[in-house]
């Protein structure tokens, strides 16, 4: 295992956009621990990844792209969605788009976004349809959801952790979120 992880690397290169995200067909089922370059990190619920290869019976090597801000990897410059963190060091220079490879337990992967967000979705409709009809997450961009939640989290009387929980669901499923092809 150690020898395999030792060969892992973070490849750094500039890409014009993160549209490659849409091409991934497997997603993180729930926030989980990962190993990046043999060091500990976390990958967050919903993040799309590409499986590169099997590491052992339990683990696989995956790859994902994001924009680096210190030890955090986001979907873009507005830092709307956190994709991954690492305990030591930074992912790349500030604002640089990088591809990251990591080892993760394969049980944390799912091919069905709806399955991943089942509980979040229920919470969303529970909290956000008490006064008005619901807008589907895909009806807004990530940034729009951020802005709308600034106002509406107060009206829905959400606690901070609940806002965070809801916000992640809405942004991951936003029109420019992890699954833009979703209708």
């Amino acid at each position, binding site marked *: 295992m150690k020898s395999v992880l030792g060969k892992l690397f973070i490849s750094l290169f500039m890409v014009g956009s993160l549209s490659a995200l849409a091409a991934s067909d497997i997603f993180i089922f729930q926030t989980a621990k990962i190993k990046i370059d043999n060091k500990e990190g976390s990958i967050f619920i919903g993040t799309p990844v590409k499986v590169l290869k099997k590491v052992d019976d339990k683990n696989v090597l995956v790859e994902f792209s994001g924009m680096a801000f210190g030890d955090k990897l986001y979907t873009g410059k507005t830092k709307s969605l956190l994709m991954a963190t690492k305990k030591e060091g930074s992912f790349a220079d500030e604002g640089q788009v990088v591809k990251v490879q990591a080892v993760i337990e394969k049980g944390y992967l799912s091919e069905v976004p709806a399955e991943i967000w089942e509980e979040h979705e229920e919470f969303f409709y529970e*909290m956000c349809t008490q006064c008005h009809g619901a807008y589907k997450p895909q009806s807004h961009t990530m940034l729009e959801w951020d802005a709308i939640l600034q106002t509406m989290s107060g009206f829905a009387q959400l606690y901070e952790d609940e806002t965070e929980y809801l916000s992640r669901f809405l942004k991951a499923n936003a029109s420019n979120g992890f699954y833009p092809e979703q209708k």
Partner: protein
Amino acid sequence: MDTSRRDFLRKGVAGSAALTVSGALSSVGAANILESRTVKIPSASHFGAFYAHVRDGKIVDITSQLDSDANPTVIVKGLADRNSSNSRVKYPVVRKSYLEGKGRGDLRGKEEFVRVSWDTALDLAADAIKRAQKKGGNEALYNASYGGWSIPGAFKPNVLAGRFFNQIGGAVGTAGEYSNGAAGPTNPAIVGDMEVYSIQTAHEQIIANTKVLVLWGADPYKTQRAGYSVPNHRCYDAYEEYKKAGIKVILIDPIYTISGQEFNAEWIKIRPGSDVAMMMAMMHYLYKTGKYDKEFIEKYTHGFDKFLPYLLGKTDGIEKTAKWAEKLTEIPAKTIEYLADTMVSNRTMIAGNWAMQRAEYGEQVDWSIITLASMIGQIGLAGGGFGFSMHYEGGGDAASGKRTVGGISQGKGGEVSLAIPASRMSDLINKPGQKVTYKGKVITYPKVEFMLSAGGSPIGHQPNTNELIEAMRKLDTVVVMEPWWTPTAKMADIVFPATTTMERDDIASGMSYSNDRIYAMKQIVPPRYESKDDYEIFTLLAKRFGTEKKYTRDRTAKDWLEGLYSKSYARREMNITFEEFWDKGSVHYEIPDEARKYVRHSAFRADPVANALKTETGKIQIYSEQFASYNYKEFKGHPMWFEPTEWLGNSKLLKKYPLHLVSPHPTYRIHTQMDNTWVQNAHKVQGREPIRVSPNDAKKFGVRDGEIVEVYNDRGSILAGVVVTKTIRDGVVAIEEGAWYSPEDSTKDNTRCNSGQVNLLTSSRPTSQMASATTANSTLVSIRKAGVVSPNVAYNPPKIQGA
């Protein structure tokens, strides 16, 4: 369900009586109270929390809960009258031709009804839904139950309707709203927040720091009377402190409003619809004189460089000078410059309103105020900047930060979740297959067959009433659930009698921002006639679709209320049981002192990087690349002045319709609510909605105080009672929205309304391609002698066979 509800009621009433005894011991002899046959039951409304005094099953008085509502309005007094009003829908009814299977939608509003059993009415409604589904799928269903204003409780009819439709596959709904249809969808991209519903700088900070308060159309003294939740009217105490603090108040408004009068404000009698022009001129002046805050613009905003050429006339050849604006606004250039000087040299809070954006090109209003406030440079400073909600829900109240109670969920929608922009209701019905733009997207209107309205009155809130009536007559079926014979109910095929909040149990929160109380809305009297709770009506309807269990989850009304209460701070942190709360009638939350220090946008000002706005650049978007990319004709990348179609600057139209009509929020109602009560006697003129006319215009049109006149344009005509007053500027008349429509001759189309429903005159023209919102305040009219008038029968039930 019924049994438990009644038990619940009995317990509630007993609890209330006990409270009355213990609460009254200090001031009144206990023996007298015990001997009294009058029971005092706590409840709450959009107009405040109150006690109903019930004797022998009848409400004999309504008094305010003074510990909650220190400054009650007279409106609560009308609640008892409304409950026992003859305008109640007493039985399920069906329009005659519809019941006979002839359809004849063209006779809606013209024909009598027939009393039927609940089962017949429910079966007919269910059949109509299934018929529409078969014909056009769920996109043929239109859930017109819009907004949650009918009651402040958890059992909001619009929510219950949404829950029902969602569980049978969805229906066409509403995107955005009438109130903030233009600013609501636009502001988030400009300033990273809707702003129109955001918590405002605390009153304490205004009182301590503000030197100049600009009420740009805002009329807090009037609009704070009613609330979306249960108002405590404490803001009026704060306003007294505003006065004592010596804050200079400037009112920019065609009407010298109650707020203007209370604050003894300096009145800038602006021409309606020209506000953006004045804002542009103020910005031009600040730029040219170098008085604007360059540092703020550089540090906190994006795109000033793209806006500036427009301001200076380099892109369109029109420099936005004060002289230029003088012609448009009818405010002298010197006054415009003085206003800019006053605002930039004093700590100034600009209190925007919502009426200005309910006008053609309404998207520009808040954007222009935000840009002006950016140039003034006080955003994020205590008592400075702008606020778009200072007139709403006690805006400025400090927040308790504690959870009150929510409501019932509509759940996830079905396959159909199409939503049309609010105010496009008539277009939806009239223009199947045609397209409407909304925030960079294109929506295609489906073919709607079935329409349901619960707890609302489209014939009240949709502009151009005649257009809507014509549209509604094209539908296969119209179903209405209402406690009262509203004008919309009279246009239905099937009408279900719903209980009022006085006839069922519910729960409500106090104040959307301060969240300072939870109220029990207890059943006060038994349901009248054959009325049923909205929850029960939808459950019975759901049963006909096999979704009953899903709809109720086997919960009684009490189960829902207890469940909602269980999530509150009162239950979780204060450990007050539901029974204790219910017996007491309310729970009060303390407001932490820290909350009184809140200054809107102060975190952004302190650190614009760490606390970046949720916008494209993290800054205030004076220019938005996103907006520019929409390529709309009358909504560009930066705020702009667009000349409206209907306004006093249109010399051609003025020849025919020389008066600008504004339709402000009502003083004695929420929209159409309470129009069927005696409270209206406080202001109606000969039973008609008042029209405010300046003395000069009264002379010009030869009309007298107290006279009934006809107000008209190409869209319709109404009767209104003249009030000649110097509190409105020349060339402008005002009729408050919300009077119930009463057709003078219901057998004819486009007949005169003899009640004064202002939306017969307003236009359904959209603001722009951006928000496609309502433009009710862009209306020109004329006045003429009314001739022979007939009585206003807006509040009478229609003819009903068998009842």
